[in-house]
């Protein structure tokens, strides 16, 4: 039959036509009636027929003897994996899952939501539902929890089937947490969630409603396909509506099968046994119809492709699949071709593969522009067929007929109407329009089989949206025209029309012409308000790759001329803007509405389906530079337009947003930090450049030219809105002592007064002030007071010894020391002032020592040097104007023990540190306005700087400071405090967790910890046992644990889960924060790419809070961090990156040992030991310790005269020496006196050997042949042996 005859018959005698076609599928009970219409107006095709889609897709082929033929190929370009299934295998998988669903109580008519990535199990799930008559509703994997929740409430499913996660190019999308969140948000309660564990190594919280997919199917009894009425709904597929509530398109069973079967034969021209590939997602209608049902009904091999047209791994991805699976007919969206064309303009990738199996290339999803069509024709050398359909129709409405008599292809046209569609173009008035006149595309009722029945639970909306505009017709919502030969041209959604001086111009037609320009990759045309003409078009153009340098004015004039030539001056196209990218949805639709609103200066919402929100920011920038539309008049337009956007990415609250923001920060770090800095802080003057980076000199300059004061951002700006909010809660060492709650207003006053005291004592901008205080409010106040007047604070942990303090004071020539008369730590009190006095004997730079009262101990006050702080505070005014600081002015110095010799004074500067500590705090802890946040660290460490003082205060948070220790008065102290203040975020060190885990669990269970939302860990990677204890006993399995990795040098958290966003995995710091680009290097300095690898952890691009230098020794900074590898920051840590890109820190690769969270260099400890008169030489190594994480062991060679000494006494003396030189933290747990050290011939000490032996892994020492004296190994083994029991 020719197309013409078929079409004519379908219109004149639709019932006879489709009854005939219905014979091509198998029925349990063949229909006797073609069509009935309910009083409601719903059409049912073949009302008395009975069949089953799952049967048609699988069983019938097995019955017919094709069970061993290939039904399905899963091809994952992201996992480089292929799995093939025969019909027999699919039958087993599907019937067992169907049986399992039945056991969960799913019955005919029940709804099941399927929220899955592109894996075979999505298809199995759909067919399993169809098998037992359950109505599936596939929700596109990756839709946000809100969207999913809306669909749950509408479809009211009994069960959800999901997978733990999906992978997209280089990113992991965690589905399960999104499902959990959606379930929580939805009103309808889902009974069970069947979870397919993809075993990508990520752990998810187990919920009571979870059922493991494989366990379920393993045990289940296979279910047979049940007979269903032709009119029984097979599925609900949601399409994005404009009104917020989802539109669930309802599809029948029998009519759909007949329509699909007809299309495979007649439109796609395939024969049973062919391979048919729809490169789409099962979440869309194309996926439902042409990945799953149609090819399987027609016994074609179908392909589930997990990947993209480009970047997985390149623009040849599609052609590789065609070659691998000998695809005969392929179907994809024009946007995929545009993406390929952009990367591979000359089709070089196509030539690399054998695509000779391919007969036809079909395109649909949006109108295919002529340029793309011609490009595809030219490079594929086969018919390229555009056709048109909608979610509503389920299969084509307008097409070309490869199985009948193919029509000549007319570029720009989707072909001719499919049999059954009596298409007319109607005017606004409803009049039928003549050929070549544009109007609304409508089709006379009834519509052919397979067309939607109604909208789920909302037939009214179906009537209103589709049937009532033109009575008797289906209103498609699309505009278009039919030419004199009957070809249908779709010109786009109705709202894509511009009215220029009363002439209606289709934006699609304009876009068509603009894309003809040889350098244009793609474009969008939107209406721009115009006082004279009402509207004029604005063309937003993306140039082709490699042609970005094409002179823009030239391109603009050429495009204007082109439109003038092709459409005429009526088009009035004068405005052409060249941009890098267009905003699109994830399915590839250009967001014209958003563009139109932007340019009109109207408020807009970012659609949840937007692929990359940062495109909007780029476009705003371009619009404002070129003064387009509203941007030409309103000065604040940029700020206003960016509002929706900025709000959305300072706080990352979904994994999708994390992925987007991360990508943006990676592609254009400067633009990213520019936006973060500009929108979230107060500046006295904006910067001239975001970043200047000189890798040779290791000099980074952030926000150069900007002026600010960090205390204005941390305190002053909150006074208006949060003046009475508690800024700092101070919990004293002794629980009997009253706490302090310092409001922002009080904090402001205290900081100002303190600042005035500093000034009165001669401190000026740039002077260094050493702060040696216990954890009392004065510590935070003094720190901020320095920042207020531009003095550089150098906080020294108040547990360091006098000599450590003196060396730090001297290194930076501090002019002042601020200390207290003493401090409390548990039951002890410490004579802090005594230590200071000892230190200050050797510090000529110190002029003043301010002393605050804490213990009221009797102390010596040195006349002329020492002053009581409380006296000083009385003398000064409570107002102190903030010093105006340059962005790169020093904010503080903080000493870290390096691996060699003297401690390094890491220098942090004002603006960059502020931006990053605030940004990272907000995201890592997901702080909300009334939360109470507690970090148990001491302000003497970087953790305290960034995450007790600056980060929280910059965000207007309430931060808790605790003076005491976790064991005083008992081991329940931490939990007592959590209960007392209803702490929401709790951030501590693994060493504390391990110590607390060893205690009676009653210490925990006594207290109400239900306020906790987020748990943090810092200092070293948390081991799994401690992680589990923390998770189960403290977080009660409901608080995500953020295992944060960072360093004194990095200023802020670098790699960490974002709670409720990143799925956590024990011992993994997971993913970098936006703006941080970790890389792994091998020993030769080559970057190790890909996943499942390990190497030395480096950071590729500068970030705002990186330390700028080592105080007074830039060479050392360069040598330590920027000389190991070219152009990158070397962290000194080793790390591995797992299958999905999560990072796990494996430890120091140099000689720094972390004990109880503190970095200890081996060199200074060895230096201290070597000062002992009896010691000749020593080596320090770390070994695993179940409380401290690591502990220190020393291997000591004695001088000859030392050999006679009592070893126990010697050990004590050595530890005393270490205590006084470095601090008690560095004391050795084991001291071995040996006759020699394992040294290479060149004299290098092989610490690895001592480490292995001390860890009880002597069998893994490896090669010792390079040792000068291998026999020494045996001696060491003997000496260590007794300690290992």
């Amino acid at each position, binding site marked *: 039959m020719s197309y013409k005859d078929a079409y004519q018959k379908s219109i004149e005698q639709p019932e006879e036509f489709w009854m005939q076609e219905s014979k091509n599928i198998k029925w349990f009970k063949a229909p006797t009636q073609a069509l009935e*219409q309910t009083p409601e107006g719903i059409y049912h095709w073949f009302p008395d027929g009975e069949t089953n889609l799952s049967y048609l897709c699988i069983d019938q082929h097995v019955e017919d003897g094709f069970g061993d033929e290939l039904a399905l190929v899963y091809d994952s370009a992201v996992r480089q994996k292929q799995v093939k299934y025969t019909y027999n295998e699919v039958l087993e998988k599907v019937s067992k899952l169907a049986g399992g669903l039945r056991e969960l109580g799913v019955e005919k008519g029940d709804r099941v939501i399927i929220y899955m990535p592109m894996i075979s199990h999505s298809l199995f799930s759909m067919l399993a539902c169809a098998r037992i008559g359950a109505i599936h509703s596939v929700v596109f994997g990756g839709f946000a929890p809100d969207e999913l929740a809306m669909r749950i409430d509408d479809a009211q499913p009994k069960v959800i089937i999901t997978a733990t996660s999906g992978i997209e190019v280089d990113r992991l999308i965690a589905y399960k947490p999104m499902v959990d969140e959606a379930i929580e948000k939805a009103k309808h309660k889902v009974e069970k969630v069947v979870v397919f564990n993809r075993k990508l190594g990520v752990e998810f919280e187990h919920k009571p409603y979870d059922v493991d997919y494989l366990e379920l199917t393993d045990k289940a009894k296979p279910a047979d396909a049940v007979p269903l009425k032709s009119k029984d709904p097979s599925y609900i597929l949601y399409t994005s509506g404009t009104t917020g509530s989802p539109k669930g398109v309802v599809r029948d069973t029998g009519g759909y099968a007949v329509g699909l079967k007809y299309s495979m034969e007649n439109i796609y021209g395939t024969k049973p046994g062919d391979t048919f590939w729809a490169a789409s997602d099962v979440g869309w209608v194309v996926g439902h119809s042409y990945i799953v049902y149609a090819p399987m009904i027609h016994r074609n091999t179908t392909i589930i492709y997990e990947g993209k047209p480009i970047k997985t791994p390149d623009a040849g991805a599609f052609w590789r699949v065609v070659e691998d699976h000998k695809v005969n007919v392929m179907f994809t969206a024009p946007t995929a071709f545009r993406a390929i064309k952009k990367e591979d303009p000359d089709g070089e990738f196509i030539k690399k593969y054998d695509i000779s199996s391919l007969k036809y290339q079909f395109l649909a999803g949006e109108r295919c522009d002529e340029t793309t069509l011609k490009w595809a024709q030219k490079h594929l050398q086969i018919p390229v067929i555009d056709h048109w359909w909608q979610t509503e129709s389920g299969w084509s409405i307008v097409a070309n007929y490869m199985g009948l008599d193919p029509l000549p292809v007319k570029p720009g046209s989707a072909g001719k109407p499919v049999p059954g569609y009596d298409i007319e173009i109607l005017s606004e*008035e*409803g*009049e*039928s329009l003549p050929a070549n006149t544009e109007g609304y595309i409508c089709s006379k009722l009834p519509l052919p089989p397979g067309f939607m029945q109604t909208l789920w639970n909302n037939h009214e909306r179906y*009537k209103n949206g589709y*049937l009532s*505009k*033109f*009575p008797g017709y289906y209103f498609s919502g699309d505009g278009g025209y039919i030419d004199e030969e009957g070809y249908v041209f779709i010109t786009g959604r109705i709202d894509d029309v511009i009215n220029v001086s009363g002439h209606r111009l289709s934006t699609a037609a304009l876009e068509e012409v603009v894309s003809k320009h040889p350098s244009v990759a793609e474009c969008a045309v939107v209406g721009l308000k115009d006082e004279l003409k009402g509207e004029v078009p604005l063309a937003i153009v993306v140039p082709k790759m490699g042609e970005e340098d094409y002179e823009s004015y030239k391109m603009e004039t050429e495009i204007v001329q082109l439109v003038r030539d092709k459409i005429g001056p009526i088009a009035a196209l004068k405005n052409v803007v060249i941009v890098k990218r267009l905003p699109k949805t994830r399915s590839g639709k250009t967001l014209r509405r958003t563009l139109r609103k932007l340019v009109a200066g109207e408020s807009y919402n970012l659609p949840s389906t937007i692929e990359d929100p940062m495109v909007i920011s780029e476009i705003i920038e371009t619009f404002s530079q070129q003064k387009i539309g509203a941007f030409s008049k309103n000065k604040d337009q940029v700020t206003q337009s960016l509002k929706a956007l900025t709000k959305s990415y300072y706080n990352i609250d979904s994994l999708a947003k994390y992925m987007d923001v991360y990508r943006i920060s990676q592609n254009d770090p400067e633009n990213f930090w520019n936006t973060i800095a500009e929108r979230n802080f107060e500046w006295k003057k904006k910067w001239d450049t975001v970043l200047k980076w000189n890798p040779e000199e290791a000099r980074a300059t952030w926000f150069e030219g900007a002026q600010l004061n960090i205390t204005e951002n941390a305190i002053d700006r909150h006074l208006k809105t949060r003046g009475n909010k508690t800024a700092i809660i101070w919990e004293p060492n002794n629980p009997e002592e009253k706490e302090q709650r310092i409001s922002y207003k009080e904090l402001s006053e205290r900081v100002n007064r303190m600042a005035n005291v500093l000034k009165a004592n001669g401190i000026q901008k740039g002077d260094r002030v050493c702060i040696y205080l216990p954890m009392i409010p004065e510590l935070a106040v003094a720190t901020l007071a320095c920042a207020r007047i531009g003095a550089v604070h150098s906080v020294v942990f108040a547990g360091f010894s006098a000599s450590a303090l003196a060396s730090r004071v001297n290194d930076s020539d501090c002019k002042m020391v601020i200390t207290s008369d003493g401090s409390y730590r548990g039951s002890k009190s410490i004579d802090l002032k005594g230590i200071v006095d000892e230190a200050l004997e050797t510090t000529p730079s110190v002029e003043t020592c301010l002393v605050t009262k804490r213990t009221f101990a009797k102390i010596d006050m040195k006349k002329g040097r020492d002053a009581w702080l409380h006296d000083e505070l009385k003398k000064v005014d409570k107002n102190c104007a903030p010093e105006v600081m340059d962005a790169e002015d020093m904010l503080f110095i903080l000493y870290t023990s390096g691996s060699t010799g003297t401690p390094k004074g890491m220098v942090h500067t004002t603006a960059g540190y502020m931006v990053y500590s605030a940004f990272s705090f907000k995201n890592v802890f997901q702080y909300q306005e009334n939360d109470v946040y507690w970090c148990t660290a001491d302000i003497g460490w970087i953790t305290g700087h960034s995450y007790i003082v600056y980060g929280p205060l910059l965000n207007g948070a309430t931060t808790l400071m605790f003076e005491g220790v976790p064991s005083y008065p008992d081991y329940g102290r931490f939990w007592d405090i959590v209960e007392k203040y209803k702490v929401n975020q709790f951030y501590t060190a693994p060493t504390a967790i391990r110590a607390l885990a060893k205690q009676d669990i009653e210490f925990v269970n006594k207290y109400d910890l239900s306020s906790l939302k987020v748990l943090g860990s810092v200092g070293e990677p948390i081991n799994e046992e401690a992680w589990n204890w923390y998770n189960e006993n403290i977080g009660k399995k409901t608080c995500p644990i953020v295992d944060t990795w960072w360093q004194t040098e990095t200023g802020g958290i670098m790699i960490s889960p974002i709670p409720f966003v990143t799925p956590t995995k024990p011992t993994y710091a997971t993913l970098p924060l936006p703006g941080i680009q970790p890389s792994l290097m091998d020993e030769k300095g080559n970057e190790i790419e890909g996943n499942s690898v390990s190497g030395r952890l480096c950071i590729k691009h500068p970030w705002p809070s990186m330390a700028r230098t080592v105080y007074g020794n830039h060479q050392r900074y360069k040598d330590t961090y920027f000389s190991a590898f070219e152009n990158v920051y070397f962290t000194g840590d080793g790390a591995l990156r797992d299958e999905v890109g999560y990072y796990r820190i494996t430890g120091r690769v140099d000689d720094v040992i972390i004990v109880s969270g503190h970095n200890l260099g081996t060199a200074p400890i060895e230096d201290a030991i070597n000062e002992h008169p009896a010691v000749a030489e020593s080596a320090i190594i770390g070994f695993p310790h179940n409380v401290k994480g690591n502990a220190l062991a020393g291997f000591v060679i004695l001088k000859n005269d030392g050999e006679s000494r009592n070893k126990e006494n010697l050990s004590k003396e050595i530890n005393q020496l270490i205590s006084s030189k470095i601090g008690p933290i560095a004391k050795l747990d084991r001291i071995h006196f040996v006759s020699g050290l394992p040294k290479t011939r060149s004299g290098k000490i092989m610490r690895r050997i001592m480490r292995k032996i001390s860890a009880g892994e002597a069998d893994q020492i490896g090669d010792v042949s390079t040792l000068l004296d291998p026999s020494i190994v045996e001696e060491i083994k003997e000496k260590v042996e007794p300690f290992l029991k």
Partner: protein
Amino acid sequence: MKKILLVDDEPNIIMAVEYTLRKNNYEVFIARDGEEAIALAEKLRPNLVILDIMMPKVDGYEVLEYLSDHDTLKNTTQTVIISAKQKESDVDKAIELGAKAYIKKPFSMKKLLNTISELIIQKS
């Protein structure tokens, strides 16, 4: 609430028009042929009749004639024709017989609504 009698034999037209009229606060009654239309008009005294021409049994012209000749209905009830008959002579004939408006099928619901509300406003 104004009463409208909708007379058409095509279910899809009835469905769409009835739905929209109700949404616009009209009281709607349905007749599926001319005979039923006459009976209902007599009983209900609608403010307006929407009338198809090509119908089984009694066609639209006859219904129109009946309405125009009726003692009371001719003053109280107005008629709008909706028809696929496109010729000018068809339109003239209907107007002659007393129809107040003639809308050719296919038509847009918006146009029908505008016509109805204009007629009803004029009348009151």
